């Protein structure tokens, strides 16, 4: 009864979960199968064998782990945001006399989206594996690696996350429902803690609005910075990794970077606009221009996104340095690695273009908001 029209938004974490599980399953399964042939490895092969094992883990940790953690964090925030914004309905249901557990039980649905996502990812990985095993060993430097199924992957990548998110949604809802009914129903209830900050009544309205918009949702700052971090790190890494790893890996990095960047940016900006609909509508009623609305609501995030991109750039450089200097240290013929300015330039330019296109798109969305919309919502 509570969850409707959430399909699309739940799809996004599901897609991300699918990608994360896909990458992790691919490399972890490969590693498990590698371990099975360890006994057949002759000394000449051992350096390469070790390198294969380490790269599997590194790629899995860097790409897959990054995705897994983001998906998890995103879902946690998503569940929290969803329940927080539906406090009022929860309060009404509670006031009507539904038991807490009964209301909260509705939130098992978050687990379903994880289940679907992770299952698709795992199946996808197994479909892709035969081909993947071939390219990993196309120079026949190792004995034949046979593809096996490892049940622990199913447990760790599918079942546990599903159960975790199912429980998370329900537990958080129960926790929220502990609040007195009135507090749930009263919108925007403000706890004492939040108003300790300095109140500036002197500043111009638009400047104040820009600041409070940023401050009122700190998690969004994190997400926007994270989006640009991922985009910056992953695209540059894939562009400068060409000499270091197979094109498949580079391609995967690029794909993950783009996916994470886009999805996070999309979710974050959508939330910014959605949670400020009433403010925007009232500003329009009063006669604030489109530019003013956009400036106050969206522009505060721009510098933060660029900082995120900067951190991503440094991060990927550090990571590749470590990989080259530590992981591949014992191997011969490893190409030297230097900071890739061309890659950074390409990545930055595309980032700026994409970011600004997003802002134009959301500016159009802001343009469509009318006061009628919020009046009918009551």
């Amino acid at each position, binding site marked *: 009864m509570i969850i409707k029209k959430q399909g699309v938004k739940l799809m996004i974490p599901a897609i991300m979960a699918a990608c994360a599980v896909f990458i992790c399953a691919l490399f972890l399964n490969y590693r498990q199968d590698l371990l099975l042939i360890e006994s057949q490895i002759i000394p000449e092969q051992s350096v390469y064998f070790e390198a294969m094992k380490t790269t599997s883990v590194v790629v899995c940790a860097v790409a897959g782990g990054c995705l897994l953690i983001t998906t998890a964090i995103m879902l946690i925030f998503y569940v929290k945001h969803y329940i927080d914004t539906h406090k009022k309905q929860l309060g009404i249901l509670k006031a009507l006399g539904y038991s807490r557990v009964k209301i909260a039980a509705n939130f098992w649905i978050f687990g379903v989206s994880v289940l679907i996502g992770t299952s698709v990812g795992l199946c996808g990985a197994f479909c892709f594996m035969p081909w993947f095993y071939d390219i990993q060993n196309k120079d026949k430097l190792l004995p034949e690696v046979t593809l096996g199924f490892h049940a622990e992957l199913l447990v760790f990548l599918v079942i546990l996350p599903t159960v975790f998110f199912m429980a998370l949604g329900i537990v958080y809802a129960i926790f929220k429902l502990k609040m007195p009914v009135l507090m749930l129903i*009263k*919108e*925007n*209830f*403000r706890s004492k803690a939040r*108003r300790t900050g300095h*109140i500036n*009544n002197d500043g*111009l*309205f*638009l400047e*104040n*609005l820009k600041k*409070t*918009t940023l*401050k*009122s949702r700190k998690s969004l700052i994190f997400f926007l910075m994270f989006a640009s971090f991922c985009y910056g790190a992953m695209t540059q890494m894939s562009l400068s990794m060409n000499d270091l790893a197979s094109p498949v890996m580079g391609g995967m990095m690029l794909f993950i970077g783009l996916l994470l960047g886009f999805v996070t940016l999309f979710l974050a900006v959508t939330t910014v606009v959605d949670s400020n609909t*009433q*403010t925007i*509508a*009232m*500003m*329009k*009623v*009063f*006669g*604030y*221009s*489109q530019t003013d609305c956009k400036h106050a609501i969206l522009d505060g995030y721009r510098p933060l996104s660029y900082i995120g991109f900067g951190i991503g750039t440094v991060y990927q450089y550090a990571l590749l340095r470590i990989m080259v200097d530590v992981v591949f240290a014992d191997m011969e013929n490893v190409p030297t690695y230097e900071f890739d300015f061309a890659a950074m330039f390409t990545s930055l330019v595309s980032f700026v273009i994409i970011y600004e296109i997003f802002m134009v798109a959301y500016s159009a969305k802001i*343009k469509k908001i*009318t*006061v*009628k919309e*919020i*009046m009918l919502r*009551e």
Partner: protein
Amino acid sequence: MIKAKEITKSYGREQVLKGINLQINDGDFAVILGASGSGKSTLLNAISGLERPDGGSIFYDNSDISGLSDDELTKFRKNNVGFIFQQYYLLPNMTVSQNVRMGADLAQNSEYQSIIEAVGLGGKLNSYPSELSGGEQQRVSIARALAKQPRVLFLDEPTGALDEETGRQVLDYIIKLWNDKQFTIVMVTHNANIAETAKTVIRMKSGKIAEIYTNDTQKNSYEIGW
């Protein structure tokens, strides 16, 4: 002077405004009275430049606003009108003072503090909307609209969400401010008693104007049997 000519507006197949003609003089206190669903809010939104009507024209003095683009309408609202709604729509993360500045900044009005005092909230400058009662919140929204120094103030059921006594107080503030400043007020209500506080009453019935009359004497909010 606001003049509406043959205004029509439909939602889907349903015609909500069926050719409205009316005139509101400068400095008038006009009330649009009618049953729920008769099209009062729709009419108010049309003559205030919030929504464009399907047909007809709306003149402010001699300029027609019905043909303006969205941006031009926004500019028109900025320079001419103020709004107060049944739901106060204050900005939740901003203090009383910051909320009122939303209106004040548009008119470069630095005297907004005196308006907050005029509605009796001088002691609550730093409170957030969630810390105020309904009546206080509505008074903030009145201050916010007045700080903009509008030519015309539009109110859609301003006391609709308040209990009788608080509603009375809010209405009293509105009447008092109107007496002091003599701007034009257009207020929507379904309550015939509230209409007795007005100078001009425009009674609507199913999308049409049933009658327009002038009250000989304007009652104050305590004389009306609400």
